[in-house]
């Protein structure tokens, strides 16, 4: 091949000038990246107002999810609520029921914490078999952000929890109200009342101005537009914790209060939306791992469908209830692969296979599918979602 004209010829961008400052006072990604967006699976739900979309995890790297492409889940649509109109009430079994304004919340001592938020239904469409071709769709109901906020404990202590109080019921200001019951022990542990994510105000679709952060527990409990925390003796058993977000087993009985998200991982590249385009040679295999029970301590990768495993390299040591990025720096010989990843967490839990999960839970659980995912990478570099024996 001859010399590259991109090098030998003076290019337009090396002659003229680019945009001045303030061309975009709040910037969006450059237009060449316009494919990196949230996507919806239309057949899943009746209406986008009460639906979910998916983070483009196949196209991201590192661990922090930009707010603009972090998945959304609404039950009655994303509402606009001004800080000036925001009120948070603490009531129920407390010494003094209180009302806080947004400004009040900013005057309490604050914490910064990085946590993942995963919808309990992530990978839910894959229970009965491989269905969707893309890590975005099979595993994209997840995001990972740095939250700034006040511990819920601080607010509860300000109101004074009575000894008979054993649960809190949290609800949002939107029309769905989306209330959930949380044991007091968790509420007093690591739950945050957050108003910033990744350094800036929460986005409307993530509950601006204030949402709840319930580390390691299913996303449905991370109530957005948080308006009320009620201290109770027992759980409310709301619609979102009985008719939904309960896991039906093969015999027809259902597990309830399955709040913790188990250890899980997925290879984000290569994957169906991120095929290998460069042919044999050096290949970066990468993905994400997380556990609601603690920190990720290791990830193993298999290229032969789980027959043999090798440890992947963690980009940084795993941290509590947050995403961990892993890499396998690999010399690809151009042959087919059945790619899998398997996460281990600080409690000694090892991510199970789909067969192991089905053995305990059957195929009707909908929620909490944390099985090992398989991508069939073909000699062409294209990848497909498959199940293996």
């Amino acid at each position, binding site marked *: 091949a001859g010399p590259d004209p991109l090098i030998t010829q003076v290019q337009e961008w090396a002659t003229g000038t680019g945009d001045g400052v303030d061309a975009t006072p709040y910037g969006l990604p450059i237009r060449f990246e316009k494919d990196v967006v949230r996507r919806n699976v239309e057949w899943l739900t009746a209406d986008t107002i009460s639906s979910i979309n998916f983070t483009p995890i196949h196209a991201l790297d590192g661990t922090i999810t930009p707010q603009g492409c972090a998945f959304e889940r609404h*039950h009655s649509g994303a509402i606009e609520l001004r800080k000036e109109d925001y009120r948070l009430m603490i009531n129920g079994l407390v010494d003094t029921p*209180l009302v806080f304004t947004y400004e009040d919340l900013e005057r309490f001592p604050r914490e910064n914490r990085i946590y993942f938020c995963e919808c309990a239904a992530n990978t839910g469409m894959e229970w009965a078999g491989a269905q969707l*071709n*893309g890590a975005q769709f099979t595993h994209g109901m997840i995001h990972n952000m740095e939250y700034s906020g006040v511990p819920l404990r601080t607010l509860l202590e300000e109101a004074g929890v009575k000894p008979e109080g054993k649960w809190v019921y949290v609800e949002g200001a939107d029309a769905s109200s989306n209330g959930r019951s949380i044991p007091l022990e968790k509420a007093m542990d690591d739950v945050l009342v957050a108003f910033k994510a990744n350094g800036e105000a929460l986005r409307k679709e993530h509950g601006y101005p204030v949402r709840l952060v319930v580390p390691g527990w299913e996303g449905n409990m991370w109530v957005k537009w948080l308006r009320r925390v009620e201290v109770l003796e027992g759980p409310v058993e709301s619609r979102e914790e009985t*008719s939904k977000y309960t896991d039906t087993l093969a015999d027809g009985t259902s597990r309830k209060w399955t709040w913790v998200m188990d250890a899980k991982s997925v290879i984000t590249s290569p994957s169906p939306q991120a095929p290998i385009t460069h042919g044999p040679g050096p290949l970066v295999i990468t993905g994400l791992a997380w556990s609601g029970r603690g920190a990720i301590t290791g990830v193993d990768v298999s290229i032969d469908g789980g027959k*043999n495993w090798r440890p992947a390299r963690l980009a940084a040591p795993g941290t509590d209830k947050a995403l961990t990025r892993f890499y396998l720096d690999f010399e690809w010989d151009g042959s087919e692969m059945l790619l899998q990843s398997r996460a281990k967490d600080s409690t000694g839990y090892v991510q199970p296979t789909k067969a192991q999960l089905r053995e305990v839970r059957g195929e009707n659980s909908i929620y909490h599918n944390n099985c090992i995912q398989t991508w069939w990478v073909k000699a062409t570099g294209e990848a497909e979602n498959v199940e293996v024996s």
Partner: protein
Amino acid sequence: EKFGLGRPALPEEIAAWDLDVSPDGTGLPAGSGSVEDGEMLFSDHCAICHGDFAEGVDNWPKLAGGQGTLADKDPLKTVGSYWPYLSTVWDYVHRSMPFGNAQTLTADDTYAIVAYILYSNDLVEDDFVLSNENFLEVEMPNADGFIIDDREEAEAHFWTDTPCMENCKESVEITMRAAVLDVTPTETRAKKVQELIRKTKPEPREDAAVEEVKAEQAAVSEEAAAPAEETAALDPELVKAGEKVFKKCKACHQVGEGAKNKTGPLLNGIVGAAAGQAEKYKYSKVMKAAAEEGLVWSEEELAAFLAKPKAYMKGTKMSFAGLKSEEDIQAVIAYLKSFPQ
């Protein structure tokens, strides 16, 4: 340590927000409602999504039936077959329904609607009246169908700490492929293929982009020109912009060949048509009344309706908040005009 921030909540404020109802009936207000009244209310407020008999419309939840199916391949989870507590139904209907018009039902309305849902599940007779007095007497069929999270015991074998690393199984076969029934959204599939083609054929990108745009324009003008003559005058750019805006409407409305009534009526020929004319569609009372008074969906009327449906017609079933931009409104009207029949 107290910070002295916030202020005491007033009793009226707590009463306004503290509405949740617990399984033991805590939080239930005094009141009652009959199956008979519930049937009327359900028909007006709920049937559009849940069906006249709570059987569900499209992807909206079915509220009745399914008893005895929980161990089946595809269990049908309804109030009758699945929900363990009646309080949950009352609480949810009262605070979160009807969809797009939440927190408008009175306590008595709520008792009546819940009574009708029980009736549609064959759990009470047609002369039943539900009240705060007899609320706890209703038996929910699946009340004992739940166990508390037992993963740490039932799945104790997942805590292995030292998983197998070598020769973990004899053979590996592909047993199922997503490509077989591929239900992945087509947009990304198409894009992936386009990308692959682009990468294998490194042609000058500027030209390719121009050709793409030209091809798209041609396609649009063909589409727009094909139907009746009156639509030939439509601006294809505006129609195309309107098609994008219509995505917001698509959840409830269909338009074009084979369009049917969904949550909202089909919209073929809507511009310039008399209101309330879609066959077999159940319009709201106010829409029926407006139709009787001769409302015609001229572009002006339609524009006003689309800007703020609920302000334009109080009581309309259309739960859409409205199109904020005048450009979007004009675009979507142009798009709708491109389907004259």
